[in-house]
């Protein structure tokens, strides 16, 4: 499952962040911000238009991510552990 498919306020665990293309600086930054294997994430809110952007809790921090950014984040199967 990818992060954009996760229902709101359902904790899940990050599996990996996939590169979209070579030298994907967005993917690298996502990893630096804490989207790495084993980290708990949760969808907290969605923007008012077209449910964009997404507000994602990772670690102790909240980030606004556009759907295309969130689509790089693959979650472990079985949602929460």
């Amino acid at each position, binding site marked *: 499952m990818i992060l954009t498919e996760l229902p709101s306020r359902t904790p899940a665990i990050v599996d990996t962040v996939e590169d*979209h293309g070579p030298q994907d*600086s*967005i993917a*690298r*930054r*996502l990893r*630096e*911000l*804490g989207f*790495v294997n084993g*980290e*708990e994430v949760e969808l*907290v*809110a*969605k*923007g*008012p*238009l*077209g449910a*964009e*952007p997404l*507000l994602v*809790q990772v*670690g*102790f*921090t*909240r*980030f*606004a*991510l*556009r759907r*295309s*950014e969130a689509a790089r984040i693959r979650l472990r199967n079985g949602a929460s552990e």
Partner: protein
Amino acid sequence: MSAADASTLRLALVGNPNCGKTALFNQLTGSRQKVANYAGVTVERKEGRLHSAASGRQYAVLDLPGAYSLHAASLDEAVTRDVCRGFYPGETAPDVLVCVVDATNLRLHLRFALEVRELGKPMILAVNMMDAAQRRGIVIDLAALERELGVPVVETVAVKHNGARALIEQIDRTAAHPHAPTARLAEGADLHAETRRLLSLAVSMPTRTAKVDDALDRWLLHPVFGLLALAVVMFLIFQAVYAWATPLMDLIEAGTGALGEWAGGVLPEGPLNSLLVEGIIAGLGGVIVFLPQILILFAFILALEESGYLPRAAFLLDRMMASAGLSGRSFIPLLSSFACAIPGIMATRSIQDPRDRLATILVAPLMTCSARLPVYALLIGAFIPQKTVWGIFNQQGLVLFGLYAAGILSALIVSWVMKKWRRDKSEHALLLELPSYRIPHPRDLLIGLWERAMIFLKRVGGIILALTILLWFLLNFPAPPPDAVGPALDYSFAGRIGHAMAVFFSPLGFNWQICIALIPGLAAREVAVSSLATIYALSAADDDAAIQALTPVISDGWSLATALSLLVWFIYAPMCISTLATIKRETGSWKQMGFATFYLFALAYLASLVTYQVASALGAG
């Protein structure tokens, strides 16, 4: 290190955005700060002096831009990286790095601290916002953290009096015996794994988020209530800017008026009297009068920024702005541009995507800056009748609102067209942190406001003063021949320039007096009003009457079509050299500056032409 500052140890504050670094910097250095730019780029460089009462030592403290990683993704981060490593040209390498982390956000911030530690420089870890952490029941074993990290660890509360005492004591100790970190990561080790290990050893955290944040976000990010709240906040700001500033502005106006009268009475009649009273005092007074509005707007922007609300506004508006070719991050710079496009354009540095940043820079001049307000106020006061429409609205207020709305709408259209033009299908990143809500600290707001006021006043004392004097000269020289008929102004340089320009601008309904006023408006739009006053004062038979009351002079002399055309001109007019210079500096490109100048000028000319011709055809000519 040069011999001169060999005795002064150099500290640099580094940390993630939102770690409270600037508040800590303010706490350490107080008002002993110097704000400038790094050589060659426009990243703000803040340096201050710290005097340790305990040791009597002096330190130079540098507040580096916030960074998530030393793998720089923006100009700000690149500066931080290079200064930390001592590679930045013209910048002395810091002796000690003070890495600031937010005690409530250690998962993110400790990873960066580890990255900084790998630089191998003497370092102190300041665990900031310990008060907020305690309130949330977060327990941090600083001793364990210090042992595992191999660097001194102290706790700080940047917003509390004496909240940096432990840090200053540690700085004194490190200054006496500087040494590199005693621990390092093994080759190829993962920063995230190490961060987790540190957290599990030293930190106990009852909940991942603050209850207050959860509750506020539930409402403030709500699709309906959130947008409503944003609209109310914006409305309040504009109300405050116009309502609260009025008494202060009246006071400043009365003050400069009295000063002009006094100077005019004391000095003997002659060129010096005219230069001082009609040129300098009237010209500069007309600009300083906007200081209250600019400060009120900035007070709100700073407070919203400190409180953590601005990124929420960006979150709510991102989708809308993205469809117009901008980004949620553009919101903050564009909001600042309502005060003045210069700080607005400078604020675009926080937009990481270069294309979004460029689009924001190019449309920022379309936001109605406070300098345009006096022009609007003068023209609306003279031409739009004061009456109530639809029962509740003031017609003059509606026109003013319409002018603001026209600016915003034009900005969205222009950025949308630019997006289509580029045919850019590639991805633009948002990746925006929404930090914890905080109550802004008055000291930090005051220091921020002080900086803004100084920037504004320096501008008034520099370029605006110079142009006011130049305009006065152009208006008064050469003197008319003895057998001259008609006003002396016709014979001056300015008069000749005005007549020449009027050929080009007459299709817009601008007479030669307006054309002259457009020239000094290049320096600062607000000068256009004082220029009109000076021009009509010098061309009128009765000087005093004309200075006292520009409104009746223009409402008799100009047609409604001319007034409307001039109003529309000022929505677009690229007539602000400082803005254009800022665009050049921020984009580093003459081409972009040229493009901005051209498109704004073309829009202004076309829109005014249409306005004047249509209004004339409808009988307003």
